[in-house]
């Protein structure tokens, strides 16, 4: 009875239509648009690859890419490395009861919208009304109580920090679930062999959550190139263009500087990067339609 192909398509059509129009056609159009000079209220002028040439000569593009990479490196450190270590500690038997409470609380920030988190951090770091600088001054660290988001060398790090604050608990939760699936025998065997907690972390936990690690790694990497909301809300790419990421560069070029074609070229670059990473992800987890998959951990 499941051999009626036409029947199958009947079910598939809504999904195929939506995904085709708003994702595939949209991506195709984006490439097409990147070959013109145009803005929302003008005619399109064919410029060929000029937008791409300009892109690679544009200091702001490189700043954006650099900031995305910073985002990626720091996010991987925190949301993969540190989150795994935290998860392992919380799953220690002597800490389990406290651990349950801990992981729920640390998970909550990831439920907030990035807009709320961005505004929250912006207010916290504000030199006039935020509590961060007042706290620093209170403990005698007045010298480093600077205008965090107004300083070109610290702004991007503050944005990245807000993102870690929001998501460390999230990936930690995923690691906890993966660790819970490791049979207790493994740890007991390690203990009998004389392994201490740190050794059993490296010899039992890490290898057994390998797949979850890979998964978190790739999604965190892809996420780092999709960043938009928190930067837009906290600094809008400023001061100057110091905390620009590719996402905000796209938005600013398109909707602020009337360069839609150029914005589309930035979009194309974001697409190429995230596409490559996603392909790697799908490859790594060997997801296919036959039901064999490894990503679940």
């Amino acid at each position: 009875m499941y051999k009626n192909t036409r029947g199958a398509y009947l079910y598939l059509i809504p999904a195929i239509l939506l995904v085709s129009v708003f994702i595939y056609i949209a991506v195709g159009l984006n490439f097409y648009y990147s070959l013109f000079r145009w803005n929302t209220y003008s005619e399109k002028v064919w410029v060929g690859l000029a937008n791409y040439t300009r892109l690679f000569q544009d200091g702001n593009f490189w700043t954006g890419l650099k900031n995305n990479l910073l985002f990626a490196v720091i996010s991987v450190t925190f949301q993969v490395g540190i989150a795994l270590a935290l998860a392992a500690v919380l799953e220690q038997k002597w800490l389990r009861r406290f651990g349950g409470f801990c992981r729920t609380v640390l998970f909550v920030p990831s439920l907030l919208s990035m807009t709320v988190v961005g505004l929250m951090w912006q207010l916290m770091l504000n030199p006039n009304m935020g509590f961060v600088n007042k706290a620093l001054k209170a403990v005698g660290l007045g010298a480093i109580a600077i205008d965090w988001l107004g300083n070109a060398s610290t702004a991007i790090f503050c944005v990245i920090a807000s993102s870690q604050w929001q998501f460390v608990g999230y990936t930690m939760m995923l690691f906890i679930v993966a660790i819970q699936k490791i049979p207790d025998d493994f740890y007991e065997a390690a203990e009998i062999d004389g392994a201490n907690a740190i050794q059993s972390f490296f010899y039992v936990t890490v290898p057994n959550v390998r797949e979850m690690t890979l998964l978190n790694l790739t999604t965190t990497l892809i996420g780092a190139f999709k960043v938009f909301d928190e930067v837009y809300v906290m600094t809008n790419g400023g001061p100057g263009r110091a905390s620009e990421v590719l996402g905000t560069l796209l938005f600013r070029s398109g909707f602020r500087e009337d360069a839609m074609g150029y914005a589309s070229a930035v979009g194309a670059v974001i697409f190429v990067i995230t596409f490559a990473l996603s392909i790697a992800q799908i490859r790594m987890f060997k997801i296919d339609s036959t039901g064999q998959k490894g990503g679940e951990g």
Partner: protein
Amino acid sequence: MKSHGIRLSPTTVLLRVLAVILFCIMLAGALYPMYWVAMSGFKTTTELLISPFKLPSAFSLKNYIGVWKVGISKFFLNSVFITVSSAALTAVVSAFAAFPLSRYRFKMRGFWFMFLLCGLMLAPQVSLISNYKILQALHLYDSYLGLILVYTAFRVPYTMFLMWSYFMTTPKDIEEAACIDGCSSFMIFWKMLIPMSKPIMATGILLTARYVWNDFLFSLIYTESAALKTIPYGLNSLKGESGTDWGQLLAGMTISSIPIIVLFICTQKYFVRGLTVGAVKG
């Protein structure tokens, strides 16, 4: 590890104490900013400027009521409507798609599976400008429907994958038995598979709800009338108004976060399950 009866070495004790201290600091780090926002929502602007740490002098709901009246109520209702519609539509469309992909045998099955799944990899910004033009061409720009369709399109790949993995694990024997009795495929899908898949449906709906409730970018670009804007946009625009009332902004942030946190606490089980099936952020 049997900690009872076994004497712990001093190093272990020290490490454990350190670990507990570390986690207490982290808990404080996670909770304090949220507490500060909720608490500051009760303060006047002057209080905010002068004493950021102190408790508000009076627990007045003035800011909370004020921000609700100023327009958060409208944004809030919009958010609720768009979130519920998008989540429901996504669940239906995804379940429809996951069904043949997990049951039917046809030539293009592998292709369509990858076709839908690869939608996952698209950063929303890439299609921002194109979808802005596509929605205009379809006369769906600046409408609830347009926004809901875009959200659905972006959530279908993941939700489909979620349901597909679940459908793959449900036994097919019962369905085949039913089939002999002359049941149509739709009846099997609707009367048997869906009821069996309630937990995963709940997960899919919750994750879509979280995504839509928190999204800022699409609301920013695909709608233009203030009447259609959702909460994240509303909050950010409060900041932009002249003479920002900071107490109100903080109150608005609190109001907008409560529903999703409450939803999480009530449905923690499903949330976590969904996160671990595909574990794709967003």
